[in-house]
């Protein structure tokens, strides 16, 4: 009886494991398509977090593009599970060098730490294009390399949103910023963009704290902020996930009607909130185009059709009026 019970439990456990493996197997299948065809250039797309909707969109865009241009190049798309896992990304790039790909399009997990390994790749004769998160200019200079950057200007995007917000406020109104992870380059740029526009419009930034890109953390931070600043007029969030948390906090505090919320990234949930009027505006960096632009640019360089230099991708303001 005992033995039966144990084996019963084991059977259930094995079954559950098997199901998990099957599920993840289904998801993993897509990865395995890129058999190398001779003659075609092989482009490696080294991504940041696979857990982030933004990068997911970016990667999907690249895969779609490759599917439509099967004859032009092969794509090897790789990402790291955690946005901050610099080591893993470092290893990924080295793997790509070992596989002798023709070009690497990289969204660096860290704007300084990934410069060295990118230089290794260039020394190995690989074309490197930097997307999304721009390499640190000083570090590039120290290493004596120049790597072309293709991507959005986060600071400009944030400025666009904040300028739109300024139109709804009066000079002297108090606003607060919810930052992303304080050490991340795009988080810093977005914060600066918000600050540029708010200062220019003579608003008062009374508070700025990090919620690490997280919804539930943003809820707690915003909840505390609105208690502290009874006359707060607007909250600028460095991404939409945190904007969702901000809305939840404001709703719970009964302040949703007198505090405006600005987001960034244009995720679908944020669009719903804009329709409801809970979020004022967000910013679309056209994630699906960033990686594609980077790949096209890399192919151009390979063919000698372009000289390496920075290239900015589109950044658009999105308001309730734009969605229908």
């Amino acid at each position, binding site marked *: 009886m005992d033995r039966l019970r144990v084996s019963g439990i084991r059977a259930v*456990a094995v079954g559950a494991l098997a199901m998990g493996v099957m599920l993840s197997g289904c998801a993993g299948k897509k990865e395995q398509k890129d058999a190398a065809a001779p003659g075609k250039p092989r482009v490696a797309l080294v991504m940041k977090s696979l857990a982030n909707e933004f990068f997911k969109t970016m990667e999907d865009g690249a895969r779609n593009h490759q599917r439509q241009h099967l004859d032009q190049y092969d794509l090897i798309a790789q990402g790291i599970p955690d946005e901050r896992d610099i080591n893993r990304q470092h290893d990924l790039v080295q793997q790509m060098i070992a596989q002798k790909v023709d070009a690497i399009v990289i969204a660096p997990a860290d704007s300084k730490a990934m410069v060295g390994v990118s230089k290794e790749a260039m020394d190995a004769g690989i074309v490197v294009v930097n997307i999304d998160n721009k390499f640190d200019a000083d570090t590039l200079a120290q290493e004596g390399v120049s790597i072309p950057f293709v991507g959005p200007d986060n600071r400009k995007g944030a400025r666009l949103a904040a300028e739109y917000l300024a139109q709804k406020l009066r000079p002297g109104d108090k606003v607060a910023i919810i930052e992303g992870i304080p050490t991340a380059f795009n988080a810093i740029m977005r914060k600066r963009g918000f600050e540029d526009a708010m200062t220019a419009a003579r608003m008062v930034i009374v508070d700025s704290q990090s919620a690490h890109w997280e919804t539930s953390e943003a809820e707690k931070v915003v909840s*505390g902020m609105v208690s502290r600043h009874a006359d707060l007029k607007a909250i600028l969030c460095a991404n939409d996930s945190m904007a969702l948390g901000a809305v939840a906090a404001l709703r719970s505090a009964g302040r949703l009607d007198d505090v405006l919320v600005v987001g960034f990234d244009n995720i*679908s949930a944020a669009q719903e909130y804009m329709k409801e009027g809970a979020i004022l505006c967000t910013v679309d960096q056209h994630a699906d185009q960033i990686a594609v632009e980077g790949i096209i640019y890399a192919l151009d360089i390979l063919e000698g059709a372009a000289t390496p230099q920075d290239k900015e991708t589109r950044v658009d303001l999105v308001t309730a009026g734009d969605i229908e």
Partner: protein
Amino acid sequence: MTEYVGMVFVVASLIAIFSLTAPNFFQVETFRMTANQIPEVIILAVGMTYVLIVAGIDLSVGSVLALSSAVLGVCLVRYQLPLPVAVAASLGAGLACGAVNGSLTVAWRLPSFIVTLAMLQAARGLTHIVTGQQTQYFRPMIRELTSISVLGLSLPFLIAVAIAVLGQIVLCRTVFGRYMVAIGTNEEAARLSGIDPRRIKLVVFTLCGLLAAVAALAQSTRLGSATPTAGTGFELEVIAAVVIGGTSLMGGRGTVIRSVFGVIIIAILGRGLIQLGAADPTKQLITGCVIVAAVIVDHYRHSFRKAPLPTETPSPSL
């Protein structure tokens, strides 16, 4: 009541300090909103207390929470299922994760640290797969749940309090609770006393998974959405709260009510630091210090008792 003196003292001190230093801290509104933000942590703390009492650990609660809310979101949004069905599916997901944790731990006698560490990864991966890495927005579909409140306290908070009270009663007044303490204190002696430790442990881990799903519901109703990254690092916050409450990581000792005090301490501290406008590194530094300080202050509750304690504290309220 002496066993709660230390905890109450820590909570009162924190409130006093922040009332003096942080603008607009000492208001009913602050406490109401803080209360409404902690139901998921309270619920997880109940499950975690149980798991620690049987000398296990569950590192997967954050991921299981994310998976459960993902299932809820996908059922409501993508498959347009009715709310009760979606809730049942969500609870089922948490229950299943807990059952897998429990059965792997029991059937192969694996350390729960390893099993649940694996589940932490696996459930997070499943969450990304289930959601397609997209935030699920379902506020309009759960309006019935969000509208209920008593004196400004939300339904999830009231449910969390009920679960904590029930959890405490089960722990100290039922045969099951007594068996948990016995197993955590000395598993072999419990087995030789005719108790089946495997069955109890399986139930405890499954319950912890189910409670993670309940916590997911509590969080989702408030945020109106399910993010694939929800609950990241939650396990450590919950374990910290439970340990502040005096539950032993070695098993056999702990109470649910004290764990809830641990949750309250961490919540008030977090809220206070936000209202002070502290910088990120400062917040982390102070949180770390307070966790240690709370444990030390609580240690002195022993001096309220007459006899000095020889070694470990016995489980106070059996």
